[in-house]
């Protein structure tokens, strides 16, 4: 099963440290040395604030990704169990943006790359679980209130298993009561 990062609105305080952590992780330390306008500030998760909820929204790394199915140039791939966009091959058609039911993909300009007419390339952008960095998702690490969790197969099993046991315990109480009747 694929892993994904899940935000908890009960813990999130809307501070957006996750967004900054995401950009720093993907740009590397050079971000503090280069021209402030010479890098991509494209966080791969987005803080959503409604009247009742504050939480960052990002890719769910679906088992059968709608984005991957919709991509006409096959530039969305599964790498190390993460659904990843190859932005070098992306043609910017927005099919994946349309297909994703979570709004987890946005379109961003890619500094330093140009189209034939000289304008900047615009490509799809989404969470890649920080694959290849070896540190795990930066957003999870930097969150000051630990509002983000990396849900892997084990974690999901643990959550579901706890619920099944609780359900069984409740059913036992019910069955015992019925026997008394």
């Amino acid at each position, binding site marked *: 099963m694929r892993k994904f990062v899940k935000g908890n609105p009960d813990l999130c305080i809307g501070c957006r440290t996750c967004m900054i952590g995401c950009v720093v992780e993907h740009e590397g330390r050079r971000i503090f040395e280069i021209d402030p306008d010479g890098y991509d500030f494209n966080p791969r998760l987005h803080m959503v604030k409604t009247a009742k909820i504050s939480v960052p929204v990002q890719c769910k790394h679906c088992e*059968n990704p709608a984005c991957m199915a919709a991509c006409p140039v096959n530039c969305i791939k599964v790498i190390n169990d993460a659904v990843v966009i190859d932005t070098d091959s992306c043609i910017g058609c927005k099919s994946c943006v349309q297909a994703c039911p979570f709004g987890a993909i946005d379109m961003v300009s890619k500094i330093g790359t140009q189209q034939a007419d000289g304008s900047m390339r615009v490509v799809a952008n989404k969470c890649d679980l920080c694959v290849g960095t070896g540190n795990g998702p930066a957003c999870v690490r930097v969150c000051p209130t630990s509002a983000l969790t990396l849900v892997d197969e084990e974690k999901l099993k643990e959550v579901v298993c706890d619920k099944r046991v609780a359900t069984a315990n409740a059913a036992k109480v019910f069955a015992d009561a019925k026997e008394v009747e």
Partner: protein
Amino acid sequence: MTNKYSCYVLADPNKCTGCKACELACFAEHNKSNNGVGYTVGTVTIPVTPKLYLTKTKAYCMPIQCRHCEDAPCLNACQKHAIYRENSQVIVDQEKCIGCKDCVLACPFGAIAILPIGEKGKLKLQKDREVVKVASKCDLCKDIEGGPACVRVCPNDALELVDANADIEAKNIKTAEGLYVSRI
């Protein structure tokens, strides 16, 4: 006639022995037509994927399955609208499901699992050859003759189809009788 409330199967942990007959029957019934499971020995060519899940605690065991909630958290969580209602029951559209796992986390009972599905005796694949995995949960054997297979096969009669509609009616009548007896 459509039901006012959905029905669901509930197990009795005081009767269940943990034999898994329900899981196997569930898998067999749901994969008969698509994957040719069940007609002869050796017909199972895909992993066994039930829609109810035997759970063992220290003291007892029972299968856990969907309660077909009236305000279903799984249905409310699904952004893809792949979970819908049919005759009051909560059903997963496995064609639409993208395997995002929101429903798994939303369900308070642990009644949903993400499992592969078969097609013509083989595991269904995506275009990149990855296995298709979808939300799998009890559909009350909606298109299967005889109703829920798990209830039918349980050797200990530990499973019961709970029909709140009939249950409420029966209880109402009993209560009315009680009120008649206790009238003043």
